[in-house]
């Protein structure tokens, strides 16, 4: 769920419920939509009640009867307002379900507007957001960041998890991202930041050039380069920048990666958090291409390949040797 802090929610619970009914009545409901729905409906008893009532109104037989009647009545008349209405409607695309796109789509022609927003996602809940200057941010599951545009500075703080940035070029306003101890400065580019823990940050560049600074040091990265900053040290390496980051498709590629790191990725998708029983196990390395968006699949794979025991509790899943 995304929360935009600088504006109060424009949607009442009923509006939200109606939007959810419409979304959930679709022929196919994407898994991430269903996940968001479950988070929303469980978030407050009012949500569940409003949804039940709204859903009943959707299904209500009198509504269907009235529509059928209207159809017959209208069949004899000409219907002329569709085109005008259509043009009007195109101007009226408002925010939808918690994603308060209205404020994120503020017109960018205002002179250097101050803008701030705070985005948060639950497990398994990836959000794509457009900022007023055209910058796009995709926030991975279980992640959080804040955005602040002020004067000549565009500042983002990634406080948890992972995000992908496609920054609109604007030389007059540098774009800064702070993630843990690392600070990334760009002009216009696409890159991914993974905040692994408080002192470890991985930055991968998909277009353009960025500067990564941590403590006293800084390195410049260009297309296809990535850097891991840890405790003030920065290590640079190459990666395949042809594809978009794996996590955006729900994959995680591990090559001798610590189990702890893999499970951190899994937890961005898992509805029930996964914990590792002891540090030794967390430090054990694993390799493979994991569909982290499907935690059950990853865990059963770990069990089969590495003999890791998976104990499924109601509120937590525990991994033991």
């Amino acid at each position, binding site marked *: 769920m995304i929360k935009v802090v600088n504006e109060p929610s424009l949607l009442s619970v*009923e*509006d939200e419920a*109606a*939007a959810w*009914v*419409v*979304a*959930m009545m*679709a*022929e196919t*409901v994407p*898994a991430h939509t*269903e*996940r968001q*729905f*479950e988070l929303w*409906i*469980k978030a407050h*008893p009012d949500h*569940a*009640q409003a*949804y*039940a*009532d*709204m*859903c*009943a*109104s*959707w*299904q*209500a*037989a*009198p*509504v*269907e*009867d*009235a*529509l*059928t*009647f*209207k*159809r*017959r009545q209208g069949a004899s008349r000409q*219907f002329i*307002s*569709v085109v005008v*209405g*259509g043009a*009007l*409607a*195109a101007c*009226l*695309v*408002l925010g*939808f379900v918690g994603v308060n796109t209205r404020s994120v789509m503020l017109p960018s022609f205002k002179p250097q507007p101050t803008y701030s927003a705070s985005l948060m996602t639950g497990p398994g809940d990836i959000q794509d957001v457009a900022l007023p200057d055209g910058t796009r941010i995709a926030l991975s599951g279980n992640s959080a960041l804040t955005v602040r545009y002020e004067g000549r500075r565009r500042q983002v703080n990634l406080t948890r998890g992972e995000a992908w940035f496609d920054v609109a070029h604007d030389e007059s306003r540098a774009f800064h991202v702070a993630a843990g101890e690392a600070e990334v400065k760009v002009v216009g580019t696409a890159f991914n930041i993974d905040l692994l823990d408080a002192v470890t940050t991985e930055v991968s560049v998909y277009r353009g050039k960025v500067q990564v600074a941590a403590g006293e040091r800084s390195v410049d990265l260009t297309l296809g380069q990535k850097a891991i900053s840890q405790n003030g040290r920065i290590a640079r390496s190459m990666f395949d920048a042809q594809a978009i980051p794996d996590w955006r498709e729900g994959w995680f590629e591990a090559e001798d990666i610590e189990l702890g790191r893999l499970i951190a990725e899994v937890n961005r998708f898992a*509805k029930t958090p996964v914990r590792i029983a002891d540090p030794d196990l967390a430090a054990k390395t694993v390799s493979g291409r994991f569909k982290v968006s499907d935690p*059950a699949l990853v865990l059963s794979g770990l069990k089969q390949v590495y003999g890791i025991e998976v104990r499924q*509790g*109601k*509120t937590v899943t525990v991994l033991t040797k």
Partner: protein
Amino acid sequence: MEPQRHDDEWAAIRLIVRRYALSRTRQPDLADDIAQQAVLNAIEYQQNHIVISLHALAFRIADNLIKGHYRRLKPISDISEIDGMACARPLPDRITEDRAETRAMLEALNKMPPLRRDVFMRRRLDGQSCEDIGRALNLNPKAIEKHITRALVDLHAARRKWREVETPDKTIKPDNDIEEGWAS
């Protein structure tokens, strides 16, 4: 404590499904049965399948139960033509009431901007997807969803107003809250 939490979750789902079934059927006993059955079926289902949203699952099952119930009850008498409206609802004692409600819905439809009404009709009556409607009207599917949502909010408001009730179903007493809720 964990099983407890689990039970609480199912209890909450049962309650909310009951509220839904009651709003649709207006029969407290039937709503009880449907909610009970929906939760039992959902529990069984999720033991063998991966379920993302238990709520969505329970609502879906309740829908099918309600549909099945009315299918069984469908009477032979011709109630399909009331004021020239197709009507598949089977309980004769509710027809008058429903006709009044239908008139209220018709009023709400008449008040809508034509585009909103047209889009809603395509979705709800013809079952067209938002993508299809968007293609037909040259609009973004998100905009279509927005129109349908607005229409639903309008109809819901009219329906609620017509029933002239607030329905605080927070108390878990099975029947009492309902009678007052639907007396009209």
